[in-house]
């Protein structure tokens, strides 16, 4: 039993409901169309969350707080190799065939003393060994034992200029549209490497973190090619794609806008977050 006044109200509410239903329906229809989910103006709003996540995690995460470390018995029997597993780059293949004795890591950019380091030089630096969990952006995790020189040891020797804001890692592997330009089994070397070179960048909170290593060993053995030989980056508190493999050169910069599409890394240029602590 509804009084006339009430009924009038109900009708207007009903039309309100109908409006709501139309709104929800068009939203669902829009869901069928990725034009909405990848619309730049929509994404500009959506992307505000990344800055929020970065600031929030930097706020609650003490600067040198370590990622959990595990015991020998936790080491994965089968550590998945992901991304590039066999770079086809000619220079890289030549270095690899000589077991990387001629390989040199360049450290330059905004440093007081640009330098090159051989594998022997890196092994001569104070080393850190850590059993940490590797979390891939895809969702899986593997635990491995990494040995390497803390990045801070290298940075301190090169001398960081005050205007440096990021550490950029230039790598020997290349990707074409998200697919690694790998050497297929049986192929001796690629005719000419296509695609874009892999690169990554981190800020100095991560660069000076004790678990940030230039790793040359996995599970007590020299880093195999599939895992980034001769040298890869290890970070304790970010996802796998930040941990550049096949590192050839470390460059200190005040901005990474000049590299690739300017987002600070190969996957970042394809839309992944620069801050991968989540």
């Amino acid at each position, binding site marked *: *039993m509804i009084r006339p006044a*009430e009924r009038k109200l109900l009708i207007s509410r*009903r039309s309100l409901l109908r409006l709501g239903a139309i709104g929800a329906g068009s939203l669902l229809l829009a869901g069928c169309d990725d034009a909405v*989910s990848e619309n730049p103006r929509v994404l500009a709003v959506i992307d505000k*969350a990344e800055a929020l996540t970065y600031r929030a995690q930097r706020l609650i995460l003490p600067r040198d707080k370590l990622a959990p470390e595990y015991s020998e018995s936790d080491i994965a029997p089968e550590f998945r190799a992901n991304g590039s597993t066999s770079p086809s780059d000619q220079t890289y293949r030549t270095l690899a065939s000589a077991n990387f004795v001629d390989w040199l890591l360049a450290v330059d950019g905004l440093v007081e003393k640009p330098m090159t380091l051989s594998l022997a030089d890196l092994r001569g630096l104070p080393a850190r060994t850590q059993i940490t969990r590797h979390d891939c*952006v*895809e969702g899986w995790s*593997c*635990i491995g034992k990494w040995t390497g020189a803390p990045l801070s040891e290298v940075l301190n020797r090169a001398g960081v200029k005050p205007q440096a804001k990021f550490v950029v890692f230039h790598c020997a592997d290349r990707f074409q549209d998200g697919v690694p330009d790998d050497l297929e089994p049986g192929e001796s070397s690629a005719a000419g490497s296509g695609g874009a070179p892999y690169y990554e960048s981190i800020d100095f909170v991560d660069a000076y973190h004790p678990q940030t290593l230039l790793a040359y060993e996995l599970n007590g053995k020299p880093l195999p090619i599939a895992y980034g030989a001769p040298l890869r980056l290890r970070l304790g508190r970010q996802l796998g794609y930040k941990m550049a493999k096949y590192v050839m050169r470390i460059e200190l910069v005040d901005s990474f806008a000049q590299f690739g599409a300017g987002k600070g890394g190969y996957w970042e240029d394809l839309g992944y977050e620069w801050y991968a602590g989540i």
Partner: protein
Amino acid sequence: MSQVTMDSSPRHVTIRRHGPILRLTHWINALAWVFLLMSGLQIFNAHPALYWGRQSNFAHPFLSMTASDRDPTRGITWIAGHPFDTTGWFGVSNDANGQPNERGFPRFVTWPSEQDLATGRRWHFFFAWLFVINGFAYLLSGIISRHLVRDLWPSWSDIRDIPRSVFEHVRLRFPRERHYNVLQKLAYVSAALIALPLMVLTGLTMSPGMDAAFPWLLEVFGGRQSARSIHFITATFLVLFVFVHVVMVLISGVINNMRSMITGRYVIEEEAHDPPR
């Protein structure tokens, strides 16, 4: 729940059922939930397999969705080592051109519909923030207004009333009462106060940054991969909850129910023991 109007019939009373903050946070939550679910399925599709423990034992996921080895047009869902043909839904479903395509969940339930992990993640974390901020607003207002204790938390007399309430539901009898019935209370408590906070905590446990800040998260859930599995199972529970919730809204007086969550007004039928007009 103050009495607002008495209409001509002695038995119909319009009450203010939901306050403005509850109504607003309900609808924001509903919007965020739809996007979190769909973008979450997009993220799941990047590695459609679940494990228990700290890391991924690739040979033995407890759940996975793949294409069949023998026939790549057949989708197989493996649960605890047992294969189930789920072609068209899980493992293999049609792409935009109607061709069978290997993927965990089909394109019509993921956001975005095409396989695109990077975009799925950006949407997921945006709505995760909205969901968490909105959730805190709901909890805070629910605590201050005593809505959580007064209206949601079941009392002992409620618990004793479970058999009767089950019987009423089975007969599809939904009296319009001033207070939630005990099954409603249990459903809302399990969704709003247990499942949704569990989604947040297991979600945070998947973040390597949060694991460094709060390593106890890993202890609570038994490792990152367990947390990912619990996140998925809890999301499945929430899908069931929302399904039942929507069905109940539809069959127990859709206009009255919808009005109560939009304008706050809800018409009840006062029982015989209520004071006469």
